[in-house]
C-alpha cells in the first residue's frame, strides 16, 4: 500500500510561502521587540508564536524538504562548535558566578534590552524555527 508520510506530502498551502511568512515574522518580531523579559506579554507572545510553529512542525501541515537518506561523512565536524558551546555554557552555569563567569543568556540580556537588537533576534529565532518546521 502506498502511504504518504507527512514529510513527503506535496501539498503547498497558499500561506506557506516566503512572501507571506517572512512579513508575518517581521511583524511578530517588531511587536515582540516591544516586550521586555518577565512580562506577561512576552510570555504570551512566545507561547503563541512558538506553540503555533511547534504545532505546524508536528502535524505536517507545512510542506517539508526531503531529508537526506544518509549524511556526508563530515557530519561529525558539527559536533565541534556544539561541544564547545555546550562546554562553555555548562561550565559557566556550574560556576554560579554571573559576574566573572556569565552564561550566554546573561551576556545577551543587555544586548536584548535594545529594541532593534531584540526585534532582530526575535526575527532570527522565528526564521530558524520555520527552517526546522520545514525539515
Amino acid at each position: 500500500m502506498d502511504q504518504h508520510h507527512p514529510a513527503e506530502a506535496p501539498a503547498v498551502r497558499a500561506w506557506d510561502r516566503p512572501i507571506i511568512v517572512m512579513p508575518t515574522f517581521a511583524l511578530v518580531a517588531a511587536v515582540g521587540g516591544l516586550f521586555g523579559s518577565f512580562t506577561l506579554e512576552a510570555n504570551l507572545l512566545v507561547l503563541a508564536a512558538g506553540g503555533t510553529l511547534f504545532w505546524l512542525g508536528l502535524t505536517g501541515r507545512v510542506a517539508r524538504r526531503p531529508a537526506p537518506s544518509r549524511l556526508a561523512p563530515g557530519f561529525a565536524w558539527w559536533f565541534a562548535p556544539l561541544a564547545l558551546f555546550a562546554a562553555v555554557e555548562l561550565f559557566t552555569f556550574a560556576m554560579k558566578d554571573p559576574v566573572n563567569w556569565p552564561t550566554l543568556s546573561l551576556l545577551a540580556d543587555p544586548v536584548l534590552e535594545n529594541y532593534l537588537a531584540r526585534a532582530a533576534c526575535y526575527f532570527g529565532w522565528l526564521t530558524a524555527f520555520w527552517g526546522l518546521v520545514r525539515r
Partner: protein
Amino acid sequence: MTKVLVIALFVLAFAAFAVLGWLARSEDSKIPSFGDVAAIVMQYEVGRIPVGRIAVLGFWWWVGWHFFAR
C-alpha cells in the same frame, strides 16, 4: 578577565558554526548542511512518536522563551 575569556569562547563557537555552514554550501563538500543534520535527527521516532521532532522543535521553543520571556 574571565568574562572576556567566556565571551571569546562563545564567539569562537559561533564563528566555527558559521564557517562550517559556509563550507557545507559548496556542491562537493564532505560536510552536510546543518539543516540536513537536523533533518536526520528529527526523523528519529520511537514507535509512532516523533521523538526527534518533539525534542528539536521543543528545544528551539524553549530557547525563544528563555531569551525573550524569562
